């Protein structure tokens, strides 16, 4: 018997108590049934075809599959890299410059057409020097004579920027940025 005070006959140790759990076990007959059922289930497992995603997974887990997966990945990365390089290459930049020049030429042709209509060059006309940005107001109160037509939260008026098409075209030809911040119309409530 152990001399350890823990193992004196007066005291039961937790480890000893837990060791009693080992005596809980099925009878041998249970294992016969267990083996039969397990064999049946294993047979079913062997017969059953895996779902497609598992087949793909198992295919890629093999060395050949891994090789295919690796080469596919490399090919995809290569396509992405080459495509990126082509887009940012000098030839692509040249194409962009050519496109811009072509656009400028078209704009110049439009302005020539506009100026050809008048004997005086357009840039010297009153409209070009003092473009009319006047705001015209269409108000419901104006239409109805100002009485009994206005509604709360209803649209009261529409303000539109009136701008001559000829002036617009000429200005556009001079610079793309002239009207960048121009609001065409505004609606007031």
């Amino acid at each position, binding site marked *: 018997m152990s001399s350890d005070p823990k193992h004196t*006959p007066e*005291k*039961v*140790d*937790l*480890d*000893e*108590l*837990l*060791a*009693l*759990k*080992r*005596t*809980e*076990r*099925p*009878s041998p007959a*249970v*294992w016969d049934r*267990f*083996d039969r*059922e*397990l064999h049946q*289930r*294993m047979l079913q*497992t*062997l017969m059953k075809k895996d779902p497609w995603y598992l087949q793909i997974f198992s295919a890629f*887990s093999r060395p050949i599959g891994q090789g295919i997966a690796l080469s596919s990945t490399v090919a995809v990365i290569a396509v992405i890299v080459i495509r990126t390089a082509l887009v940012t290459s000098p030839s692509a930049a040249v194409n962009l410059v050519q496109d811009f020049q072509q656009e400028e030429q078209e704009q110049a042709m439009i302005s020539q057409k506009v100026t050809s209509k008048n004997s005086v060059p357009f840039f010297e006309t009153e409209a070009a020097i003092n473009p009319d940005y006047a705001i015209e107001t269409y108000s419901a109160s104006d239409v109805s004579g100002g009485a009994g037509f206005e509604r709360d939260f209803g649209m009261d008026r529409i303000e539109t920027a009136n701008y001559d098409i000829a002036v617009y075209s000429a200005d556009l030809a001079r610079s793309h940025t002239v009207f960048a911040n121009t609001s065409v119309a505004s609606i007031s409530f």
Partner: protein
Amino acid sequence: MATAGSVTKTFGSAKESASAAQRDLDWAIVEKVQAGNVGAYDQLVQKYREHIYSIIYNMTSNREDALDLTQETFIKAFQAIGRFKGKSSFFTWIYRIAINTSMTFLKKNRRRRFISYENVDDEMTKTEVFERLTSKSRTEKGALVQELQEKLNESLQKLSPKHRTVVILHEIEGLEHAEIAEITKSSVGTVRSRLHYAKQQLQSYLQDYLNA
């Protein structure tokens, strides 16, 4: 008279299976199965079914579920044996599958739990511990067996699954801390800490018997 020590010898411990010779033997069988000899898998089933069953039964406290989950564990291992590379021993690997299968089952059936106790072997009544308990409590042997079984199972079920796992593997299956750490994929320190906490809990649940 049989002692708790003799129970350990009779039941066999997973520690014995973990020896290098056993590991080599298991690996040889695994290689046969991987080569297509499905029948060789039976040897592994015969060798580990009782250990796997014991782990799962003590995790669930339901013998029908435990038998079903033991089969499931062997099926899962069979399906995955082609991917087993032998980096760990086979018993570590299959114990891990058993633990994971039990954990999944417990999570799924968190709200639906039935208790179904296993038969207690006659050996329990022959142990020295049992003799001591009987003499002190002056209870009839049959009644004490049932009471003790219920109390032990209830106490284990009160622990969290992670703490229960560590207690089962160490106290019932007799595994070393390092082996448990490998199975549960945690550090040895974590295993020790969980075991310490779990045993403290069990001490309080089972104090009637410990102080008898």
